[in-house]
């Protein structure tokens, strides 16, 4: 991968998204407490954390699927309130959910265009333009180098990895401003995850799309991300740039379950003795 060739994000890159003091509870379960994240134009932000830390909940608030109990979302300088995923998509925020949100009974091309179907007028009726959607889906998947048996096959016949590729392709199709990927590599083979990472790297190079990427593999984070946010029990415990942090340090912090300040403080206390 062409990691070295990508220059660091310009320090004056404008902020495109700011989620401030987001809290969310599900009944007795507190999923998020006062979480704030900030994303700049063209930045690739890694969101890491243990299982159940609240990563998916946070991005589902951004995608309009959940509504926050408290907190605000400012996107491109305007405060926004997403009542549904429709609103977020209309605002240029595309999400690949952890469960992929594909419809098993529908064909690949219908899934690609679900919610933004092409129509044609036939005898005054607004009918689906299946041919156009089929052609566009095929064309687009070919451009991305994603190969599936047929765009006509129903999604429940595809393998887990193929489905993941379809979901990623669908999210990039509409050229979003902000792309949110919740574990997009989970079911992918080595080749395929290199491929998807390549797609992200490509976006990063152009610095047009801002990406929030949830992954558990730290190699991959250091390969394609500019910055890391560590979410721990519903709170942001670390916000660091990949340039200033080593992989070992990140693993140590995540394992300890504490923020970097706490770790530094603990280290300072024991510093007198040899490590």
């Amino acid at each position, binding site marked *: *991968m*062409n990691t070295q060739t990508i220059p660091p994000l310009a320090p004056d890159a404008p902020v495109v998204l700011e989620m401030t003091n987001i809290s969310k509870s599900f009944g007795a379960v507190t999923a998020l407490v006062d979480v704030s994240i900030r994303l700049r134009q063209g930045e690739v932000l890694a969101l890491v954390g243990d299982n159940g830390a609240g990563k998916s909940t946070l991005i*589902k608030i951004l*995608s309009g*699927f959940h509504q926050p109990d408290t907190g605000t979302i400012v996107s491109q300088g305007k405060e926004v309130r997403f009542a*549904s*995923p*429709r609103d977020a*998509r209309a605002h240029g925020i595309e*999400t690949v*959910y952890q*469960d*992929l*949100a*594909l*419809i*098993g*009974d*529908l*064909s690949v091309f*219908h899934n690609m265009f*679900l*919610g933004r*179907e092409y*129509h044609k007028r036939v005898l005054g009726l*607004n*009918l*689906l333009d*299946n041919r156009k959607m089929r052609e566009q889906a095929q064309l687009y998947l*070919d*451009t*991305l*180098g*994603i*190969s*599936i*048996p*047929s765009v*006509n*096959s*129903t999604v429940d*016949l*595809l*393998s887990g*990895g*193929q489905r993941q590729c379809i979901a990623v392709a669908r999210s990039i199709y509409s050229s979003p401003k902000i792309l949110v990927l919740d574990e997009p590599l989970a079911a992918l083979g080595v*080749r*395929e995850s*290199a*491929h998807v990472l*390549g*797609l992200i*790297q*490509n976006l990063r190079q152009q610095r047009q799309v801002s990406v929030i990427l949830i992954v558990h593999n730290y190699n991959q984070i250091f390969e394609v991300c500019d910055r890391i946010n560590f979410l721990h029990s519903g709170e942001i415990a670390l916000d660091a740039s990949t340039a200033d942090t080593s992989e070992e340090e990140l693993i140590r912090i995540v394992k300890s379950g504490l923020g970097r300040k706490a770790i530094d403080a603990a280290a300072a206390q024991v510093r007198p003795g040899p490590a």
Partner: protein
Amino acid sequence: MPPTAIQPTKKNAVGVKVPRTMREQLLILLSRYREASIAVVAIVLVIYFQLGSDGGFLSPSFMSVVLRDTGRLGLIATAEVMLMITGEIDLSLSAIFSIAPYIMALLSVTYGVPLAVGAVIGVLIGILVGAINGIVTVRFKVPSLITTVGTLFFLQGIVVSIYNSQPIVAPVEQPFNAIFGQSLYQPTDALLSWHGVTAFTPFLWALLVVLVLALVLNRTTFGLHTIATGSNIIGAREIGVRTDRMKIYNFMIAGGCAAFAGIINTAQFTSADPQAGSPFLTLQAIAAAVIGGTSLLGGSGTVIGALIGAFVVASLNNGLVMIGAQATVSDIYLGAAIIAAMILSIQVDRLRTRRRV
């Protein structure tokens, strides 16, 4: 813009199993042409009854009976298919079937409201009841099985209490009756006469509704979102499908269809019986839907199959009597047919290839 160069992986590399045995190939064929497989059953049944009745089964007068029942059952079966695709069911349709024409007849005899106007009001009432069913189901998260059993008793109670369970003799207004439900085909009729053709109007209306809904289901965004809602409700919602609305709209379609079926039924018998629709009618319609190839799991279904399924049920009900069996025997066949259809449908689902949506 193509991303970093990656060779496309080989086609057919993963995911699709190539069918091997005859049995698997047959099942795949069935899954691709669900309506065709139930159509074959219907044709076999027609041939059987035709031979067993010395040619009486396919006579215009007997067909007008079978097709009248097919139309009534088919409209309700189609209504159930729309709901079953979204993963819901409506057991109150028989009560809507009773109450809509009852109000039409009541308005006519007490206020002199023309039947056509009363019919529109009746259909609107059906749609309203559907909306209530839908809203209670999605907003209060009551399973539709329970919601609609509730409205079933509620409406049934209302309609019998209006006039102390008495049927109302509905006036005959032409051309309303000829268009919506003429009396049956008489032996003296010519097939191409006005009365000869209009004897089949109940079936023709059902056919029209089925064709319209087939178009809606397969060629519109509404249909696509209806399927998405039943197939993967969370996923559909995540991608922005308004799943609650889709369910409510389909409840409304179902209510409207049931009301329309009831109005046709009343136009034909020129009498509005508060007990015209028994819950058994709804169950037969669900049977027709299942026999026609719609599963209860949601996400797939065929309205054309439901109409053919209704024809199979109506043929069983009438044909067995015609060839001299006792009326009750048809239920035995119907019961067996439902279970066989369900087993087949689940087997077929397992080997499903692509659907022609």
